[in-house]
């Protein structure tokens, strides 16, 4: 059985969106959860956070940055093509019930994962301030969606090319300094960004949830490859997370673990063009 790609959209030069037909996953998906897909028999199992879901149509949306072997292979597929394996929803949904005023922070691709959280919070009646950051104006994604999913949207760029220069941490600090009182900050993006947000919110005493995306294989608690140190204890991102209390994460350890397969990834990408016995 294969899983058909219903829709593909380019969001910026590096990032694209894919909606994939997986009714059983769409039926259960909640913000904060993820799926694992494998493109073909030779492929790796790679986790992607669920960016959106359509229970009626049975579609599950993922947003992908083509940076490694699998994501580059995925970028070559179009609507009508399919992937061999698609499993989920995995992980624990982000607990959003009961929150009244929340800052949702997205860094780059992390915006794609922050979006369903903002959308769900809004639907639950919370006041949402969304702060998203990109390298430059050309890399901004999901602007309309985030506008609809928030009460206030702040878009920052590293180079100021959209007229609002700065990092998401700068913008969050401005809000906090202006006296905004958030029940919670939800921060999703690269590890250094999430770490910086946590450092800031710790000073202001605002509870902060982050979404970890480490290397994993099965996504059901079997391999332990995704372990993250939280409050001094190893936790599995796949079954205990992927969301954790950002103030309790051992960020140094998490950042070092992310380097585990960097050299293999390079080899895999380099060799990807000529592969003996490979179908396509």
């Amino acid at each position: 059985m294969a899983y058909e790609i219903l829709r593909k959209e380019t969001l910026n030069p590096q990032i694209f969106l894919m909606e994939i037909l997986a009714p059983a996953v769409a039926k259960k998906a909640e913000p904060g959860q993820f799926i694992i897909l494998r493109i073909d028999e030779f492929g790796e199992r790679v986790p992607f956070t669920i960016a959106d879901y359509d229970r009626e149509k049975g579609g599950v949306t993922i947003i992908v940055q083509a940076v490694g072997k699998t994501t580059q292979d995925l970028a070559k597929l179009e609507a009508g093509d399919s992937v061999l394996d698609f499993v989920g929803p995995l992980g624990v949904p982000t607990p959003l019930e009961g929150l009244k005023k929340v800052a949702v922070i997205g860094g780059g691709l992390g915006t794609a994962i922050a979006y369903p959280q903002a959308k769900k919070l809004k639907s639950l009646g919370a006041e949402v301030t969304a702060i998203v950051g990109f390298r430059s104006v050309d890399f901004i994604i999901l602007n309309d969606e985030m506008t609809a999913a928030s009460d206030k949207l702040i878009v920052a760029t590293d180079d100021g090319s959209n007229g609002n220069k700065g990092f998401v941490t700068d913008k969050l600090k401005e809000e906090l300094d202006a006296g905004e009182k958030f029940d919670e900050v939800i921060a999703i993006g690269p590890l250094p960004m999430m770490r910086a947000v946590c450092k800031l919110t710790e000073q202001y005493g605002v509870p902060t949830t982050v979404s970890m995306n480490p290397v994993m294989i099965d996504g059901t608690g079997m391999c332990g490859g995704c372990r993250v140190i939280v409050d001094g204890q190893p936790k599995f991102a796949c079954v205990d997370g992927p969301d954790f209390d950002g103030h309790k994460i051992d960020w140094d350890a998490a950042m070092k673990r992310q380097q585990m397969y960097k050299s293999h990834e390079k080899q895999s990408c380099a060799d990807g063009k000529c592969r003996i016995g490979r179908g396509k």
Partner: protein
Amino acid sequence: MPYWKGEITVAKANMRNDKNPMPEQEPNVRNKNFLEVATGYTAEAAIDEAKRCLNCPRKPCVNGCPVGVKIPEFIALVAEGDFEGAYAKISETNALPAVCGRVCPQESQCESKCVRGIKGEPVGIGRLERFVADYYRENCAAKEEIVKPEPNGKKVAVVGSGPSGLTVAGDLAKLGYDVTIYEAFHTAGGVLMYGIPEFRLPKAIVQQEVDKLRKYGVKIETNVVVGKTILVDELFEEMGYDAVYVASGAGLPSFLGIEGEQLNGVYSANEFLTRVNLMKAYRFPEYDTPVYCGNSVAVFGGGNVAMDAARSAKRLGAENVYIVYRRGKEELPARAEEVAHAEEEGVKFLLLQNPTKFIGDENGWLKAVEVVDMELGEPDESGRRRPQVVAGSEHTIEIDAAIISIGQSPNPLIKNTTKGLETNKRGCIVADEKGATSKPFVYAGGDAVTGAATVILAMGAGKTAAQAIHEALQNKN
């Protein structure tokens, strides 16, 4: 009738005291490839070995088999050269003979009861079972006609496609049940696929067993995580199943809980073996999944999984592969055959040693492990002598990778999402001797109930539960 029948006269038993040896690849050849280590008996060797069986009237060997294979009967057929008949005899009670012939611990089961073992070596029951299954697969399976049984209109869901799930599914399908197996991974087979390496159990053999079940009408849905994609209660309420058998295995790896376990290069045996076996990392970069192994690898633990990990590491090119175990050689829980194979292949055993911390470099990569020497004290509750630390014996071993192989416990996903399903403090599902759980029409077996055990015990549990499910559903409207 096979052509060789009649050419062989079954005279009196062969009274030689030793087993026909199992042909194997040379250690220094096989430790560089992933091909099967043992190459199997020839027909001549099988017949000769079969003649060592005395066909005792009390059949002690059968009592040693968790699925009650009719051992003397099948062996008598082998002795006559009727290998197809022998296969049919084994198949009466065992759905996976090619698997069991390879991975069962016969020395502590059937063969431990063999009368021939009193004076010499027992009959090579496992080797004969394997021979028969391989012969059948290579010569008869293609022409096999499977008659799908008459449907009885009842539906059973099986959670997990490991040995226990495959057994229950096969038995129930043959009784006419509409059986669907739900598997979390992309490939069916459970531990037979992700855990046991190719060189001990070729995946093509497992695949063939799975395909055979499909011919009996068993449906297999991969990429479904019960407890996430679908809940046990939904299997009854929304999908209309009459019973559910939970055989989700013991997949949750235990870690040592010592300093430095987070370093790059430290794996659970589950992760290491899944990368190598299921994801075929030994064929990277043809396959996308990599595995880092380095030049020096230490495996912590002394069970069969530890041997599998160590022997895989050797085959991936590691020069120094160590088994680090806190007790002595006699206490190693692995099968003697696995230990011997590992030793022959160049795995070094560091016995009576226990890790205390992993040491990394400034970039978070493992570079050494600190271990202490142990000595054995008084027996503990398991009856094994308790290892104690020798004070001041700390020393370090330089390693690039560490593989933690100290056990697995059942995955909590089903427990956490199924109301009314009782589990014990180790997270194992509580089931009676027939596999019935605290929840009506939910049965369970295999490692999910016992904690990590053997393939054959999981199959035995499946066999018993299939019978119990059949009895329960016959009386259910």
